């Protein structure tokens, strides 16, 4: 009963501040066309795509049942489509289970999000808080991140100057990412001079408002070989929820991410992160402080060692976020799915200027909810 699942194709639109010229359907169509072209699949009843897993959010889309708008372009007319309304890495976890269950041999994932559509993406995330207590006190995901950032930086010895360097690095790396548009390089001084949004998070330390779409074709072992000569096996997936009220959590700690990573690593047959075991890491740094924080949770360095890890050049040495990460601009809902896509491109040898030669195994991570409340970790191998 040892079924395996592989990513057979990856597709992304460009990520821009404002894709005013396309609506959701248009973005999705671009992704689907690329996936069909890459694999030669159709939507026939026997060997075509019959199972779609979409990723979108009703509040972001301003539309109840946001996936009903996507039915046509994802080819789901008289087929099965299910919408994961969390970070897209969760869709990878679910798609893996669909293949392993034996129910289907081919799954197409298509996720989209337009952060430019609502007047403020923070107004959307503000609605994640309960109406009686956490919402009236003014929490949204930015404020929650600010609270976490302060607690974490104190504990891990991360400085503001280090955060600025993280942003500079992300933008420099993104210059080699053909999907990232309109992201100017910045200096550390510019980062430190940018307006304070939620202490200690300054504007340039936050991922920019972004629109885009991304998709994958995932198939069972028998189908994978006919769809691609470069299958990327999903060898591990794990996720874990933390508590809701920020005061009930150890905000500076990464227990839930460690839990998720442990599950994913165990499934992939690796004991823990090691530079020999893992060739590159894609993590969802929505805010600069999350680069060292999620690195701790994934085991790239010890708990509380984030600052020291940055100081000794950890991100470059461990090949973290080589194409800019989420800080370079991916919409919420898609960060983790884009991480999986970028990691898959590396393992297919298609990462261009940033290719890690001979890359064999990668770890990708996604976050959903306030201050990383839900963490998802995926392990990929070629």
């Amino acid at each position, binding site marked *: *009963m040892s079924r395996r699942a592989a990513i057979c194709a990856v597709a992304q639109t460009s990520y821009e501040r404002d894709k005013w010229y396309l609506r959701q359907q248009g973005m999705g169509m671009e992704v689907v066309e690329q996936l069909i072209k890459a694999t030669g699949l159709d939507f026939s009843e026997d060997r075509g795509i019959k199972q779609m897993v979409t990723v979108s*959010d*009703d*509040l972001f889309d*301003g*539309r*109840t*049942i946001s*996936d*009903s*708008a996507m*039915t*046509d372009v994802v080819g*789901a*007319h*008289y*087929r*099965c*489509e*299910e*919408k*994961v*309304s*969390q970070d897209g890495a*969760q869709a990878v*976890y*679910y798609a*893996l*289970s*669909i293949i*392993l*269950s*034996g*129910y*289907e*041999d081919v799954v197409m994932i298509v996720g989209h999000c337009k952060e430019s559509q609502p007047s403020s993406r923070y107004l*959307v*995330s*503000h*609605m*994640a*808080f*309960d*109406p009686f207590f956490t919402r009236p006190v003014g929490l949204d995901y930015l404020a929650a991140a600010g609270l976490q950032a302060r607690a974490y930086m104190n504990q891990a010895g991360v400085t503001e100057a280090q955060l600025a360097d993280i942003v500079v690095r992300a933008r420099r790396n993104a210059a080699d990412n053909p999907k990232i548009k309109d992201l100017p390089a910045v200096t550390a001084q510019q980062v430190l001079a940018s307006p304070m949004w939620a202490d200690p998070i300054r504007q340039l330390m936050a991922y920019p408002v972004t629109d885009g779409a991304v998709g994958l074709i995932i198939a069972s072992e028998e189908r994978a070989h006919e769809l691609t000569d470069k299958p990327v096996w999903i060898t591990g*997936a*794990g*996720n*874990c*929820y*933390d*508590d*809701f*009220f920020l005061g009930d959590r150890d905000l500076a700690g990464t227990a*839930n991410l460690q839990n*998720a990573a442990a599950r994913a690593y165990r499934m992939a047959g690796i004991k823990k992160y090691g530079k020999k075991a893992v060739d590159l890491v894609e993590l969802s740094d929505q805010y600069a402080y999350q680069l060292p924080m999620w690195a701790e949770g994934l085991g790239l360095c010890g708990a509380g060692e984030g600052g020291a890890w940055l100081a000794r050049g950890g991100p470059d040495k461990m090949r973290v976020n080589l194409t800019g990460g989420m800080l370079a601009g991916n919409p919420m809902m898609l960060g983790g799915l884009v991480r999986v896509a970028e990691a898959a491109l590396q393992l297919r040898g298609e990462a261009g200027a940033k290719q890690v030669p001979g890359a064999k195994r990668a770890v990708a991570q996604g976050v*959903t*909810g*306030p201050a990383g*409340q*839900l963490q998802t970790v995926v392990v990929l191998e070629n």
Partner: protein
Amino acid sequence: MAKNRNVGIIGIGQTVHSSHREEVNQPEMIHEAVELALKDAGMTMADVDCIVHGNMELFEMIHQPDMWHVIGDGAVGKPGLRITTGGTTGATLVCAADTLVASGMHDVVMAIGFEKLQEGHTTGGITNMADPLWGRELQTGALTGMTADAMIEEFGEERAKYAAMKHRLIMDQHAMLNPNAHRRFGFVEEMLPAMIANTPPLVGELRIVHMCSQSDGACAMIFASEKVVKKRKAKAAWVKDHVTVHREETFNLFGNVEEITTMRYAAQKLYERNGITDPRKQIDVFEMYDPSSWWGLDWIREFLMLEGDEHLKMVEKGEIGINGKFPINPSGGVVATNPIGATAMVRVAEAAMQIRGTAGAHQVKKPVKLALASGFGGTLWTVLVLLSKKRPKLAEK
């Protein structure tokens, strides 16, 4: 493509569904269902590996509600997933839980569907599914009189209206036997002519009494692997198969006749895969998602793949009654109880209760070996789930 592992439903919990649950907030309400499901399964939260959660968020306007709800559903420190597919959500969560257990990634998965419709506006929330550029001005939630018009044209006004109201009556008779049901009126046959003549219209011939409830409620179900079922000697309703069928973005119905409804298409596939050639004989009970009496009546023909007026005759003769030849919605159905994010799951839960023999006063008397449950939502999507008392035989590798 064949399922690798068997999955059994071993725990079911439902809140009492009501329009007056002001004494609980969302996580508290969910907690009730979770506790009942655990109790039913003889388990504690420690036995649950993963929680899948869903609803239709624009009713309550909570973004990512599963984040807040961890304080009530036990998901802290555990894996989970959130899937939302409109009205079909509850049934999709059943499929997801089944898939996760069948994959071997988890042994015990709890699925939770809920809605607190009193905290929003049901029809307004559903209207929000329409495209903001062209349909949202026009759609009136799930309300339409077009099916009634089509049936009146096909069968004549008197017969069609009577059959729809008879369907309503039978559903209420069933609801009266279900302590969890939301609306239980106590209708009797003698009232039908007055009801047909006097009930205020909502849209065309769709009248208030025909239309489903707007309920607050939650449902939790525990799905376990065969290994766990055996070890615990649990009474399981086995998930035999499921089919999900979506259709294009528009409603484009009535007057724009589809080649085939998603209901009939789903039924065709499911029956074919499971050797069902005579659904009325081989299936013992059907919990159908009936958003209105008109749809509930019309879709009997679609799900059972009938022609002509067979379905009207079934209703006129009372065959869909709890002691009838082919019981439909012994729970009272959606017209009696509709906490939308939970509703499609409640259909599966009620079907599972029939198999396990735990439906109490609304248990059908005949032995239940195969039960069917449907979910509805979106632009006329269908999710169809088949449960069996006997452990399914898995296909050879």
